[in-house]
């Protein structure tokens, strides 16, 4: 099987290299009008088919690696280091992406899968798809070169083959770890598609905004995958790492956030190009930057450039990524310089107080947030280079610098929908802003009455209360602004149709899914901000607990009912049984544990969490006092954490709504289709 896998990877490389070369030659011949023995159209078609073949070959390689994991083939070095016999089946599957070589294979496979879909749907726009397919093949060649020559997943162990493997890192033996990396990679890799279309459209001087229209759904789906990947990672960190938080501003976390920020900026600014023909250069560079940041993130994770708690070990493939990144940057820059006259804007901004300018500022703030994170991530290297001292840039830096930027972004989320395109009059601004501002004021009073003291920022170094206060006020501002948008439209429909307000809102959303789906996503973002701001009021305690001893935290009384230990082939475990009371009544039983994995000889904390809308009671088995044999329990009371996960669900729902075609447009499309069928006219695909 390792030989088959290696062969499949070589074949994939040959096929993708053919797609790149034949596609490039064909497109060049078409562009200059040159003819040869083989018509360029036919050559391009062979390139497209080779691209489809790349998917088949890469799939075969990925299957071969998973097969090796399931059959405990420890002659393969990768399997030896990332699996063992007692490892449960789903984690053997996850071994595909739990190490350097496997995760690069997953990258290559997902890229091939995206390419496969793109090449199957080539009739959407044959020429533009041919350009995009060739560019994607270039990216594919890079990853397959890596897999064939620098990070080979099918390398064999030298000497005798061990009877069992070293096992999977215990931190990765968690159900979410089976979904989190593929989601993140789907996001990273997915941005290659709009990147390829943007670069292709620029190369061929494609007229208008059709490339954006074609890639809109690609970009949204990709963005959704990246969003889900980031939040699954947060949830995994919260549930597994056992330090009581979900985001540590680790370089690897930052690496995933940077392309998300530029991707979000792109999703907003393309609307200006679609509607007003503006920001063409900006959009092209935003998607270029997003793709390059996805590559840069992969470079950060794998090169050992920065210290991180969960980066892959330092390896020589960093040089490969640098070369690729410089190459991509050069191609983008060269193409842009050659074709920049094609990107002249059709319109200019007419007023600072308009929807367009709110998008512009939104982009500016998103990019400032991205720069802050990039700057914070790379500053230790810069500091070491300039003054010879490596410094740490961690949570306190980002809390002070990035949080205000995030709050400014929340403010823009509120005002954007209330401004009209082109220009807003003072009268309309006053009319639209009265209710949201009143709601924000009322929220401010309620929050202070509830015991939040924003003035603490002036008396202590604790900024949490102030930021939380601002976040709650802005949340009220945004929610009222969004609600008033829904209510205004729904009231009109309700008046005209006699439907109740809720049914009218549903109809309103179905008539314009992109706009109202977008508002739902904004609502989800607000809910996440509310959840994150709860962090300002976290409480924590640590106590060694004797049998039937109790500890109080917030409204809960936690009593130790017992403690014990257990063993199975995969791990040994110690755990405590805790009864949780509130107002004297038993609420739940919790059992935090600490495992010791036999194969990898590594410990793991298994957190026990009782989550409610108000707060999470998050308990860790910190260890056992060797003198008394009693468990040491660490308790956290983390307010509003559940809101973060609810917010993500709302974002997923909102994006799904935005992806659905408008009701009227769909009805019109079906009528057109029926008419076309009647006249026996072939209707070709579109987005």
């Amino acid at each position, binding site marked *: 099987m390792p030989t088959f896998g290696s062969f499949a990877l070589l074949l994939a490389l040959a096929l993708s290299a053919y797609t790149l070369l034949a596609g490039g030659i064909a497109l060049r011949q078409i562009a200059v009008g040159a003819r040869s023995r083989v018509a360029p159209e036919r050559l391009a078609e062979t390139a497209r088919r080779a691209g489809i073949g790349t998917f088949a070959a890469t799939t075969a390689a990925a299957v071969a690696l998973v097969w090796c994991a399931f059959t405990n083939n420890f002659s393969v070095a990768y399997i030896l280091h990332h699996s063992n016999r007692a490892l449960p089946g789903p984690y053997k599957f996850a071994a595909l992406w739990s190490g350097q070589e496997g995760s690069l294979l997953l990258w290559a496979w997902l890229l091939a899968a995206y390419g496969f879909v793109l090449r199957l749907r080539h009739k959407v726009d044959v020429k533009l798809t041919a350009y995009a397919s060739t560019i994607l093949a270039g990216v594919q060649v890079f990853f397959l070169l890596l897999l064939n020559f620098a990070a080979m997943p099918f390398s064999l162990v030298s000497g005798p083959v061990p009877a069992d493997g070293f096992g999977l890192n215990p931190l990765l033996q968690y159900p979410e770890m089976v979904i989190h990396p593929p989601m993140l990679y789907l996001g990273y890799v997915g941005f290659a598609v709009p990147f390829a279309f943007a670069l292709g459209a620029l190369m061929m001087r494609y007229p208008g905004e059709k490339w954006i229209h074609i890639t809109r759904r690609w970009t949204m789906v990709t963005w959704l995958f990246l969003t889900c990947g980031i939040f699954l990672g947060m949830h995994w960190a919260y549930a597994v790492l056992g330090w009581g938080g979900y985001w540590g501003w680790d370089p690897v976390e930052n690496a995933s956030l940077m392309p998300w920020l530029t991707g979000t900026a792109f999703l907003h600014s393309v609307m200006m190009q679609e509607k007003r023909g503006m920001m063409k250069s900006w959009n092209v560079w935003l998607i270029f930057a997003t793709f390059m940041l996805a590559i840069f993130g992969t470079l950060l994770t794998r090169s050992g450039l920065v210290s991180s708690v969960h980066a892959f070990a330092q390896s020589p493939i960093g040089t490969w990524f640098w070369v690729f990144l410089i190459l991509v940057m050069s191609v983008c820059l060269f193409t842009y310089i050659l074709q920049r006259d094609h990107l002249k804007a059709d319109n200019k*901004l007419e007023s600072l107080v308009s929807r367009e300018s709110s998008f512009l500022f939104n982009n500016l703030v998103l990019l400032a947030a991205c720069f802050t994170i990039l700057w914070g991530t790379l500053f230790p290297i810069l500091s070491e280079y300039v003054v010879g001292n490596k410094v740490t840039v961690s949570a306190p830096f980002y809390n002070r610098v990035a949080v205000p930027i995030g709050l400014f972004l929340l403010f823009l989320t509120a005002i954007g929908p209330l401004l009209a395109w082109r220009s807003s009059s003072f009268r309309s601004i006053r009319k639209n802003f009265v209710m949201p501002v009143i709601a924000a004021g009322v929220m401010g009073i309620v929050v202070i009455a509830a015991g939040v*003291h924003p003035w603490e920022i002036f008396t202590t*170094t604790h900024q949490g209360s102030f930021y939380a206060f601002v976040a709650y006020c802005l949340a009220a501002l945004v929610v009222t602004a969004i609600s008033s948008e829904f209510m205004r439209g729904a009231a009109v429909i309700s008046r005209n149709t006699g439907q109740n307000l809720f049914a009218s809102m549903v109809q309103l959303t179905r008539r314009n899914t992109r706009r109202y789906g977008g508002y739902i996503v904004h609502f989800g973002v607000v809910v996440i901000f509310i959840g994150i701001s709860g962090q300002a009021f976290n409480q924590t305690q640590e106590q060694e607990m004797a049998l039937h001893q109790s500890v109080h935290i917030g409204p809960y009384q936690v009593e130790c009912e017992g403690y014990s230990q257990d063993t199975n082939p995969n791990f040994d475990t110690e755990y405590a049984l805790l009864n949780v009371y509130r107002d004297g009544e038993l609420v739940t039983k919790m059992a935090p544990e600490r495992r010791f994995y036999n194969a990898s000889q590594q410990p793991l904390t298994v957190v026990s969490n009782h989550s409610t809308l108000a707060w999470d009671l998050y308990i860790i088995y910190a260890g056992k006092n060797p003198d008394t044999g009693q468990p040491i329990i660490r308790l956290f009371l983390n307010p509003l954490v559940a809101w973060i996960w609810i917010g993500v669900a709302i974002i997923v729902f909102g994006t799904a709504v935005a992806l659905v075609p408008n009701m009227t447009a769909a009805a019109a499309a079906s009528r057109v289709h029926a008419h076309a069928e009647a006249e026996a006219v072939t209707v070709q695909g579109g987005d």
Partner: protein
Amino acid sequence: MRGVARTGRVFAICLVAVLAMGASSNAARFDDIGHKLMCTCGCGQVLLQCNHLGCPSLSRETAELQSDLANGQSDNAILIAFQNEYGPTVLAAPMFTKFNMIAWIMPPLLLLLGIAGTVMLVRRWRLRAAGMPPVEPDPEIEKMREKIRKETEE
């Protein structure tokens, strides 16, 4: 005039009372400074977030922090003492000194420059647009824009 002075006095008393409500105790300072320091065991985590069982660095550093607080040292003095003992990487964020100042200044500076630049750009566009003849619209592109307008607006 007397009314204004009285209102001013009441305001000042309220302000002092409000500010005093947030005065920090040693426990709050321990929590605050403990989150500004890194654990030196190599876990890469903030000191009070290190969850390693029996971590020697955690217990040593927290004991030192508690002792410094008990001795009445200021927050800044404690941070400098830790930096001198463990090196600059023990601080979870660079201090406002010399080269490190750049770390703090760059992001807000860039944002402010960006905002100023955008405002100037929009003003320039407006002036230029006022003096230019209207662009002849391309019917194909306008048709697509109309479709998009319908999709994104009522």
